[in-house]
């Protein structure tokens, strides 16, 4: 309980994020589930932010951590770039040309 009281703001933040996450995708039609998953996957690449910050804070003689953090940045950016580009490619194929027939 003490922990909850000290971090009440954080708890609110987490609960709201969970609700938003569920709410915004609850209405996505089945037709767009693949782009949705691929887009969500790209968003989880936000972990790169942590990797970038980390890499900049490390000492330049700390070779082990430097290597690991560099690989982390590389993987994270790969996730972002591949994810958004391929989602865009899929979505640009969903188009409607003809007018709906009555």
């Amino acid at each position, binding site marked *: 309980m003490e922990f909850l009281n000290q971090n009440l703001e954080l708890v609110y933040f987490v609960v709201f994020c*969970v609700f938003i996450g569920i709410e915004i995708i609850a209405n996505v039609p089945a037709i767009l589930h693949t782009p949705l998953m691929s887009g969500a996957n790209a968003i989880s690449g936000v972990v790169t932010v942590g990797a970038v910050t980390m890499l900049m804070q490390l000492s330049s003689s700390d070779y082990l951590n430097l290597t690991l953090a560099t690989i982390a940045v590389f993987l994270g950016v790969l*996730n972002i770039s591949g994810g958004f580009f391929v989602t865009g490619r899929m979505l640009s194929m*969903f188009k409607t040309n003809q007018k709906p027939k009555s």
Partner: protein
Amino acid sequence: MIAYLEIGYLLSTLSFITGLKFMSHPKKANLGNKIAALGMILAVVISFFAAYTKQIPSTNLVLLLVALGGGAWIGRYMSKRVAMTEMPQFVSLFNATGGGCAMLLGIVEGHRLGLDNRDALTQVLIISTIVTGALAAIGSMVAYGKLAGITKDQKNASVIYASRVLLASIILFPVLYHLGALQASFMMYLYLILALSLFYGFFFVLPIGGADMPVVISLLNAVTGISTALTGFVGDNKIMMAGGIFVGAAGILLTFMMCKAMNRSLFKVLAGTFKKAGNVEDKGVQVIQEISLSETALQMSFARKIAIVPGYGMAVAQAQHVCAQIQQYILDKESELNYIIHPVAGRMPGHMNVLLAEANIDYQFIKEMDEGNEEMSQYDLVLVIGANDVVNPAAINDENSSVYGMPIISVHQAKKVVVLKRSMNTGYAGVRNDLFDLPNCSMLFGDAKTTLEEILKQLKMI
């Protein structure tokens, strides 16, 4: 300095919400994707400037720029080359990179935390990041291998046993460590958990069968999100928490939706089991009627309202482009042709829609299962192409069948059904399909693509 960081993160969070929200309509989805991508670039750029000082060694900056540039370029290059049929394994592969990134970050955080730190909460967060990150990374790699046809399903008992023992130890060791019963330094404990998690990720996905893959991909996606959020808690970084939680919550919801569409409990999918059909033999030999190519073409030219129910078999045969040509022909004759798609058709949720979109089939002709079922009796002719279990009426009528209770496309209610199939083999569930016995159902054997090409040729002659 901190002010612009917080505002920038807020903008990025809003862009992620907008991006996901716009996914609810095909017209806005592409714009939403661009907005989310811009938000992501903003988040990375402001994080860079917030952490930048003159004291940062040039080695670090060079490494950073090389990793950023290389990753962005390779990601773009790969995304341009991937074929739409390979989309499920591609998404898995990128999910693995996200999980890998979170796992490595957890390890570096662990190294920096050092031996003396006794802050139990931070230790728990770091270990959780490593467990989820490793699980997502290795699990997604195995899923990638399976979807690409490199790895085979391993359903023997030893694999399932190993996976349960590993899961138990991943829960047990942290408890022992924090109770002080495990005499080891934090680093030793960290590497032990890392190794266990890597093995668990491997054994966890290995026994899961082909048709359950949509559930697994979706679940692993959620795990990567959770891992990202945990990393955000370690570094007290709001954008990572928000992004990670969105993806985690959305992924878990999607996982349950997939399970519901297949009438499988998540637990059973994860346990790698499938209820075997009890009385397959009891009903005797199936009496089926075959139909010829020209007869099918003739019926198609007379039908006013036609539906196509595609399954993964159609994608394997690359028949979607011929379907588009047939549709054009039918529409020119002022008849109607719709596609009815089961939620789990294909190798990942919504995969079939992407394949049809690639063949330039307008999404207004694509009906979801419920919509299609409502007006099923109005259809003069339904073509089932490469789908099997999802049109089996036993799911409604036969309580003893292992597919009983699964939501299906009730094609048996249409006036006439033609099933395009390679052979009489059963589908993934291994159940006989009661549809084939029905008087309004005929079978047309052969490769989907060649058959449809022949039908198109004949249609043009009529």
